[in-house]
């Protein structure tokens, strides 16, 4: 776009492009200073960085770049360089030619393999894998702040890539009274991660169980799809995966699945779990494990949803759950949900 500097929009101060560039330049750290803190050779680093920019501008080809630095990098980084796959050599979409790739002394594999391997190493760690955390996860939803926009429902669907007919979160809209004295409450409903979960009680194969962090897990590899838990849940929080897809609406909708409960199941395929299994909200366990909030909490427009450790008395959720405004859904069922609402 050829935006001239004097092309101002009404009410917006005219900041020239040159000024902006100067700002960036000012913020940019000095490469030599940065690299001085690192063990590796500063000159080599600066040279590689400068040439990399040249590659980006198209003044240098990827092949030339790697041929130029392969030897120096191998000498500098040794094994680490030789064993790490080169990001320029990525299956299907590589920026260097195959001949050059083969001539390099570094490993030539896709970055995907590295990513998968490293997550697995983390998952198999000694501290017991998914759901073994010290926290006791709880959610507090402030009904005064909920505007009923359903963003959480949408965020959840895209985060967990749930198929048609499966919606871990819904916003129940209740209208009370008669015109003109009508009130309307929006009640978002995820899985309550009950402390005494009827769904766990009835599962004939123990495919669904409570994890140490309070989240109720579903083992898709064990669930036989009898739907007894679906019947038993007093909150209607469980959904059966009938195997439907958004293929007509979205291209390649099934190419990716969410790594629910920390398990990567690859593309969604017929006859493969979780198709034929029961599904429900997991408090986005896979996000919690990497220190992120559940998608619904993060997206909430009115900041109505809060996530935290109920066992930590200083946490926001623990304090909110203790307030006189707090209540749980269907308290008399004895399920003791870990989702609290503020009236």
């Amino acid at each position: 776009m050829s935006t001239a500097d004097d092309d101002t929009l009404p009410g917006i101060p005219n900041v020239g492009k040159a000024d902006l560039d100067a700002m960036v330049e000012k913020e940019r750290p000095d490469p030599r200073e940065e690299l001085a803190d690192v063990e590796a050779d500063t000159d080599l680093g600066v040279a590689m960085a400068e040439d990399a920019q040249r590659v980006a501008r198209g003044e240098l080809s990827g092949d030339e770049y790697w041929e130029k630095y392969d030897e120096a990098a191998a000498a500098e980084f040794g094994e680490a360089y030789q064993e790490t796959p080169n990001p320029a050599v990525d299956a299907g979409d590589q920026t260097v030619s195959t001949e050059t790739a083969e001539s390099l002394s570094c490993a030539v594999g896709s970055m995907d393999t590295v990513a998968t391997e490293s997550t697995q190493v983390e998952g198999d760690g000694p501290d017991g894998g998914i759901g073994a955390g010290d926290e006791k996860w709880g959610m507090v939803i402030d009904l005064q702040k909920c505007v009923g926009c359903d963003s959480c429902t949408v965020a959840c669907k895209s985060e967990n890539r749930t198929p048609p007919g499966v919606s871990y979160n819904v916003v129940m809209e209740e209208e009370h009274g008669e015109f003109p004295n009508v009130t309307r409450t929006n009640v978002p409903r995820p899985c309550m991660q009950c402390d005494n979960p009827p769904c766990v009680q009835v599962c004939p194969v123990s495919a669904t169980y409570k994890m140490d962090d309070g989240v109720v897990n579903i083992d898709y590899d064990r669930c036989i799809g009898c739907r007894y838990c679906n019947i038993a849940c007093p909150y209607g929080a469980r959904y059966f995966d009938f195997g439907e897809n958004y293929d007509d609406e979205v291209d390649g909708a099934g190419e990716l699945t969410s790594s629910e409960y920390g398990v990567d199941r690859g593309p969604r395929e017929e006859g493969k779990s979780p198709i034929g299994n029961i599904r429900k909200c997991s408090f986005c366990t896979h996000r919690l494990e990497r220190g992120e909030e559940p998608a619904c909490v993060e997206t909430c427009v009115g900041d109505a949803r809060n996530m935290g450790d109920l066992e930590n008395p200083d946490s926001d959720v623990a304090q909110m759950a203790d307030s006189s405004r707090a209540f749980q859904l269907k308290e008399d069922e004895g399920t003791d949900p870990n989702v609290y609402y503020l009236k």
Partner: protein
Amino acid sequence: MATQSSRFEFDPGFEDDRLRIVWYAIIGVLVAVGAYATYLRLTGGMATTNLTSIVPWGAWVAFYIYFVGLSAGAFLVSTMANVFEVEGMHRIDRDALFAAIISMAVALLFVWIDLGRMDRMYFPFLWRQLTSALSWEVHAYVAYIGILVTELYFSMRIDLARVAQRASGLRQTFYAALALGRLDTSEGSQSFDQRWLKRAGIVGIPLAIFLVHGGTGVLFAVSKARPYWNSGLFPVIFVISALLSGTALVMVIYVLRTRLFDGDSVDPDLLDRLAQLLIGFIIVDAALTAIETFIAIASLHPHEIETWQVIMYGPMSWSFWWFMIGFSWVFPMVLLTKKSWRRTPSVMVLAGLSVVIGIVAVRFNIVVPAQIMPVMEGLPHGSYFPTLVEWGTSVGMIGVGLLLYTLGAETLPLTPLTGGDHE
């Protein structure tokens, strides 16, 4: 009643060959329809049903509890002969046991096809859950089938031995194998069989009442999320309606098999006895259901009341009024009241079939209505009517049951060779 001269005459199977062909043709059609529907179910997955996450249990579950009930009922009728030694009932002992076994097999087929992951049907034997009624049930069913087979064996063994002794070649090997090689037909061996038959029956009675069918009722009753099921009377009604359907089934089988297979005449005293049992069960079943309904409505619990409104006035209310009340209670009751009708085989077959069909609606009205009302205000209402695939597979599985029963009736000495009672 067999006479002395026909004492060891063994000629099972249809008397009339034309009837046999027609009957097998009907079964063939049922099974073929079922096979095609099952193919669609297997390739299309659970999406071929009208089930949803709001109404996750439908026709297959209804038929499953129906056949478990039929089995438990038929079994309990058999114990009248072999445990309580009610006079004149031995004639139907094996019929009842064999029907109970086949019903149970059909029930398990229905459970199987209902699983989202049919390939994992053996998982309940690998992993368990102490608090799950379903986990217990699966084990109870296996134990129960074991008891049924044991009982049928001890009830029929002596006649298998008699047949084996007089047959030759392959037939002899076949019947001797079924008798597990015990070919002794002496008095001693017979009383040994009867002793064990009774023992197995005594173990079987609590198993059938409390675990197999009562337990199936418990499976629903524990679901506190569904107030319509969540009552202590519920499992009791399960057992009573099971007795009702089981007795009716045994009565129908007794008349039809005696007429069409044995070419004998029906014993009017036995028929009358079964008919009177049926009257008793209809009264108790109707009374308990009325009590249950009254308690539910008197509780003024909105969920209960709305569920009953769905049953009585909803779009499927015809199944309640016509099938449940009409076919399983009123119509058979009318036929059963007159003594001369109770002794008329054709009328009793009609009454029996009416009950057997009516109880299907009872089962549907147990499973479906409780899922129509949402568990929480604000969630959507359910609605459900089975798809053609669901009907087709159901018809097919019933066809398989009929086929297995007919094959058994054509080869096994289900009618005691010595006539009625044990000698």
